[in-house]
Structures are given as structure tokens and as C-alpha cells.
């Protein structure tokens, strides 16, 4: 299916948020996730199913003011 990941359109095989993170190479890194501007908890990623045109955000710590 085609989804937006961090603002970029991607064709992906994954059907859940957890498998998307694996497919994109995040491994066991600590990331924050949201779909369509709704926060998705770490423990809910396994069951969070993706659908066409979902906008997924995957974020990590960064410098901030």
C-alpha cells in the first residue's frame, strides 16, 4: 500500500505500524509514533493496522530550545 512516512510518499509491504518500523530499519530504537496526527503508543503498534494514505510520523530525540 502507499502511505506517507514523515512527509514522504512510500510504497510499503507492512500492514501494521510495528512491521512498518521493522521494514524501514528502525530496529529496537526508541521512537515516537503517530498516525494521522494521533499518538500511537509503543505497546499498540503491533495491533495498529495501516491503510492507504495514512500519514505516519516517526520521531526521535533532537536538539531543542
Amino acid at each position: 500500500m502507499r502511505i506517507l512516512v514523515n512527509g514522504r510518499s512510500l510504497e510499503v509491504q507492512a500492514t501494521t505500524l510495528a512491521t512498518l518500523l521493522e521494514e524501514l530499519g528502525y530496529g529496537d530504537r526508541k521512537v515516537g509514533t503517530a498516525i494521522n496526527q494521533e499518538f500511537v503508543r509503543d505497546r499498540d503498534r503491533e495491533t495498529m493496522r495501516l491503510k492507504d494514505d495514512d500519514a505516519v510520523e516517526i520521531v526521535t530525540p533532537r536538539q531543542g530550545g
Partner: protein
Amino acid sequence: MDPLTLYDANLGSRLLLGTARYPSPAVLGEAVRASGCEIVTVSLRREAGGGRSGESFWALIRDLGVKALPNTAGCRTAKEAVATAQMAREVFATDWIKLEVIGEEDTLQPDVFGLVDAARALVSEGFCVFPYTTDDLVVAERLLDAGCRVLMPWAAPIGSGRGVNNAFALRALRAHFPDTPLVVDAGLGAPSHATAVMELGYDAVLLNTAVARAGDPVGMARAFRLAVEAGRAGWRAQPMTPRDMAEPSTPTIDRPFDQNA
């Protein structure tokens, strides 16, 4: 210096420092140490699968032994800010959030309506909200009504280095909320600006650009540390009341050549 309590934290330092825009991670680390701060602000940003910059940055902050205050910088709506805060709580393992909802691009002025909405939603979820706000008294009331226990009014637009734009408004906030911790966030450029807001009775200052973009960030961090301490000590020592006219400091009685004796 007398201790400061922000939510559940008792702090020896009244300086909070941002972690962005430093020349290098090493300089950032040295500046944090020189500032004596115990709280640094951090953010969340997109990162690709193969990236490692987030991981290495977070390792640096952990090694410094300071408490992280995540922000919602760049969020334009309450919805974005709430989702960002929720992600930050999970990633940084803290209920603290510096809440920013930006309403205008040129000044980065907070959207105070979205700010109050987001604050209310986050407090109901157990967050300790540090709202970045204007110096508006009524908005401050609404934020406290929403459950915020700290207020962070601006002195001037983020990154401008202008110092205090409206001392009257900051003084009014201090007078109106004598028991609420007030942290000036944004707009300070020079150590003297920090001293000035501390002399108004503010509890702390939050800086980033003034230190990070100085010619010598480590030296400037040390200067701000001293400035904050001086301002706090000055305020506690109760400055004299200003006068319009001169008043001799040397006794006038028994002045030599006094023709009026």
C-alpha cells in the same frame, strides 16, 4: 542560591538551557556544564530508518546528568502539540512538557487560544505543563485555570536577543501571581537581560540562542549563570526605591565652608 521548585523538582539552578544551534555536541556539553543548569530543553524530529543522530544526541544528554524538558516546538495547532507531547512522554520518559503552539511566523508568537486548549488536554492526562506564552495577564489566568503550575512568558520573540520588550507587563504578571513560578522564556540576548528579569522577581530564565550563537558559547553560559545569580540575589536583597531627583550620599551636616550652619 535559594532553591527553586518546579512541579516535583527541587533545583539549585535558576537557569534552564536549550540544546539547539550549538557549533558542536562537545560545545553543547561544555556550555551545559558551565551554565550550572539542571534542566535542558529537547525536541522530537523526524528521522529516517538508518539514522542514528537522535540516539547519539540523547546519549549525550543522559551523560550530562540533567533533566530533560521536551518541547512541542513548531506545532501550529493544539492537536499537533498534544500528539507531540504524548510522543515525547514515551520517548523521554517524563511527564514534563514545554508546551508551544505557534500562531504567527514572523514573531513566533504563541497562539494563546490553542495553547490553553492543549494545556487543558495535557493536564487532564497527567502532564506537568510548562506553557510558553505571551505576557498577557488574562491568558496567564486561563493557563492556571487549565491546571498549569508554572508560567513561561516571553521577554521578546524567540531568537531575537532583544531583551525585555515590555517590563510593565512582566512586572504586572509577577505582582498578580506572587506564588506561581514564573520563568522568562525567549528573547534574552545578553547576561544583563537575565539579571533584569531576575530583578523583577522572576524565578528563572530559559535561554538557548543567546548562549548557542555567542562567539564563545561556553563563556556566555558561565556569564549567564553569574547574571542569573546576581539578579536573584539583588531581588532578594530588596533594591532601593528609585527617585527622580538627587539625594546626597555623603552627610551634608558639618560640611566644610558651609555658610548655612
